[in-house]
């Protein structure tokens, strides 16, 4: 029953991208500079995602932008980013990063997505993720109506026409019709669905100050609180679509990653886990997965994808 460590295979293939293990750095956590991506790669991630980039530079919301509570994290960073020109400069020479790098591309309109993808045309990204699902940035994601099947289809199609790279569409857990959205993305030629973005939004009030803490008042919820919702979304999507799913939301241990794979994810992204366990959360999660697989006689991580389904 027990398998020796050397026989455990954590590698997965995601839209023909080979990953040495299924853990990926989620967008918006640490992905601001190439140096940070490198560091995350050295700490065991199978791939890394940059922080989302728009056409123009953005300062984002005022602080506080990220806070935590006992059940998770709230953030309303507001898509601060240096704009595509500076980002393309920052992320040139990606060969320094030892694992595949995924671009995250945002825009207020279809043509913005196009401009950012064009701006990245000389950058050696391995895939493009388009989050249409941020719950707390005016002009983007849910607050710009991008979370409808129609908008999803149009934006995805536009990006699809422009690039040969795999396109991942990142969806929101807040939309009851998540499967319809994902199908629209699939129909438009998306290669994978990233599920999910942060949840809510939520609000935390400091009762002594009598005011919401986040400067934007509300923020997306991530971390432990999100995990059961994310697992349910991935489980539902696995039945509804044919393209692979990247599971995100509250993963910080090997058990969590295995749960997400069993629900139907082909790989997992980790964001808030960096807060819970440090930059080496990727190595820790892989170590825990390895031990669990050893003890449960599973050699190949690919074999557990979707097994929670009847």
């Amino acid at each position, binding site marked *: 029953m027990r398998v020796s460590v050397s026989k455990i295979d954590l590698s997965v293939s995601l839209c023909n991208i080979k990953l040495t293990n299924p853990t990926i750095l989620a967008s918006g956590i640490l992905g601001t500079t190439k140096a940070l991506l490198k560091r995350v790669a050295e700490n065991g991630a199978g791939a890394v995602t940059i922080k989302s980039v728009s056409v123009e530079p953005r300062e984002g919301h005022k602080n506080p932008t990220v806070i935590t*509570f006992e059940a998770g994290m709230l953030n309303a960073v507001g898509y*601060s980013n240096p704009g595509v020109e500076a980002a393309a400069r920052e992320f040139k020479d990606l060969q320094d990063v030892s694992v595949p790098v995924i671009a995250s591309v945002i825009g207020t309109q279809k043509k913005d997505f196009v401009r950012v993808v064009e701006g990245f045309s000389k950058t050696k990204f391995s895939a493009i993720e388009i989050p249409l699902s941020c719950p707390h940035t005016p002009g983007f994601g849910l607050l710009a109506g991008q979370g409808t099947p129609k908008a999803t289809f149009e934006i995805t199609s536009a990006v699809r026409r422009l690039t040969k790279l795999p396109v991942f569409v990142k969806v929101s857990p807040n939309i009851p019709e998540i499967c319809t959205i994902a199908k629209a993305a699939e129909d438009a030629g998306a290669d994978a669905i990233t599920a999910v973005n942060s949840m809510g939004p939520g609000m935390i009030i400091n009762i002594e*100050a009598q005011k919401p*803490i986040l400067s934007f008042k509300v923020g997306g919820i991530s971390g432990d609180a999100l995990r059961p919702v994310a697992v349910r979304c991935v489980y539902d999507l696995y039945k509804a679509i044919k393209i692979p799913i990247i599971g995100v939301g509250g993963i910080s241990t090997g058990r969590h990653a295995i749960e997400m794979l069993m629900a139907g994810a082909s790989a997992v992204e980790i964001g808030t886990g960096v807060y819970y366990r440090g930059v080496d959360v990727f190595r820790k999660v892989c*170590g825990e997965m390895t031990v669990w697989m050893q003890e449960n006689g599973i050699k190949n991580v690919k074999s557990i994808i979707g097994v929670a389904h009847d």
Partner: protein
Amino acid sequence: MVLKTLKVLLVLHMIKRKKIKLVSFSSREIEEKKAEQPVMVKICKITKESPGVKIFFFESDVKFTPGQFVMVWIPLLDEKPFTISYFQDNILGISVLKRGLFTSVLHSKKVGDTIGIRGPYGRGFNIKTNLNVCVVGGGIGMASLTTLVDKLNSVNNKQGLNITIIHGARTAAEILYQKRFRDMKLCTEDGTAGFKGTAVDLFENLIKRQRFDTVYACGPEKMLYKIFELCQRNKTNCEVSLDRYIKCGFGVCGQCDCSGRRICVDGPVFNMEELSEMKDFGKMTVTKTGERVIC
């Protein structure tokens, strides 16, 4: 590949040694969950340290290491980092230089008003005992070094510690903590007090004549870089506290990067070995949007 296998084995070893609990429901080793949320404190005293700098005192039982900082929240306005520069019993103080909107609003606060505090954040200075120490503070950077000096003094009380404090400012009026540290070596750019020139100039003079076991510095990054170079050349150990735009303060947003190291958790204090690996140190900084620009 060999390295990777080694790392996996190391993790497995750690797991075996129970540093990572696996079987139990929560296999995270961090058990105690802290909320990164501001706690409101009442300002109990305000002193004016220089025309531009006020010190705000408040009660708090937060424990910290010299060099660590807190995030100060003014509801509905913003939240920014400040070093704890005063510490006695349960009274903490922050020294605030008036620069832009946030520090101006903070300067307008009165005794009895409340502000939000979260933290402490970051990794502070390494306290070395029984040594010849030099502390170099440029401008408001001196704030980060005050509690370090206090701590060095208290730890080394009777152990023959020798602290040299260099404090540089543009002009005499901007000199800080003169009553607190009576034997500081001062320097001003305009020569209105002490040595005429920069803190780096004075430090360079000193290090030629004198051997320091450790140098601690905080101030403008150009200054810090020069001090680091001088220390390298003189094979002198040094630790410097860096400055970047801070958002989350606890290591997730990536805003405060310096060559892959986060100022807010990996720093703000770095040692020589780390600094020598940080290509951006003294050269590039990161703006509020996240753009890496020449500093």
